[in-house]
């Protein structure tokens, strides 16, 4: 294999592994690494193999680009999907990231569930609500099939809708804020002692 073929092979692997990054950014990265390889290999006494070894395997180099950009983009996003993807990437780096991912997942499921319940209430009023038994003890809440028996009474009535909507929205907002803060903190940790 000629030197040029080795370089092209490395760059092709890099381009392939940069997958989720936009085409323009991907090409810019490949162009810069190509320039680095050619500059380094021109130095007398330097072999192409040592230059490529210095860069590390193409998939690992691509992974460093992907991690940095994904976490950076997620830390500025409001999209639950992007934030969860960013926190999932962070989860691959340690316990802190794993905690952030699961807190985010649970937060979005709870918040989304509460908002969904608020929309279901007008459609299935008998099945949706917060129920207490005759003794005033909490029994259940949410959407139940079948609805609780006659011994239980639903306490919120139509107020279930605004309360569930508010709590759900606040949970979603708090979860978004928490993940973004955690991603910011993780970036700071990467950049400072």
């Amino acid at each position, binding site marked *: 294999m000629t030197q040029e073929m080795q370089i092209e092979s490395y760059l092709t692997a890099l381009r392939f592994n940069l997958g989720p990054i936009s085409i323009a950014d991907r090409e810019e990265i490949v162009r810069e690494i190509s320039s680095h390889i050619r500059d380094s290999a021109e130095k007398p006494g330097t072999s192409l193999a040592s230059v490529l070894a*210095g860069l590390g395997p193409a998939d690992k180099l691509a992974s460093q680009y992907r991690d940095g950009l994904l976490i950076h983009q997620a830390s500025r996003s409001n999209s639950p999907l992007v934030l969860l993807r960013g926190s999932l990437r962070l989860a691959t780096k340690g316990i802190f990231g794993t905690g952030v991912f699961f807190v985010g997942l649970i937060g979005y499921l709870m918040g989304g569930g509460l908002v969904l319940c608020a929309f279901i209430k007008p459609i299935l009023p008998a099945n949706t609500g917060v129920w207490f038994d005759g003794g005033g003890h909490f029994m259940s809440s949410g959407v139940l099939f079948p609805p609780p028996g006659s011994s239980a009474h639903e306490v919120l009535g139509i107020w279930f809708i605004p309360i569930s909507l508010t709590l759900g929205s606040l949970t979603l907002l708090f979860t978004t804020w928490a993940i973004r803060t955690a991603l910011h903190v993780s970036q700071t940790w990467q950049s400072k*002692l």
Partner: protein
Amino acid sequence: MANIRATPVEGDQPDRWEAQLRKGALEMAALASLWRGSLYGLEIIRFLESHSRLVLAEGTIYPILNRLKAEGMLTSEWVEAEAGHPRKYYSLTDAGRGRLRLMAEAWASFSQGLSELLEPVMEMKESKQ
């Protein structure tokens, strides 16, 4: 100038600790290398090697530069070079200069505090020698 490379000590993990230390300082070092003007990736690597004790894998610096650019700390432009291929030159933005100043102040305060803390340890080391 000696490189920061630890001699492994039995029962300890100095290599790992130093790797974390270097990684943590790398962003600040990359920004600092651009304080006096534009450089391209390989120049930044060589600058860090010659002006600091940081020895880094070449593949480490590019993703950091890419992220710093995405964060608005750096700008870049492609410049045609005599070598026959263009090079990507990085420069600090105002935000980058601001962040570097803050990092430098924090670093100076942090390292001064640690130096004072470690002074007796270093004195003991010197007296043994």
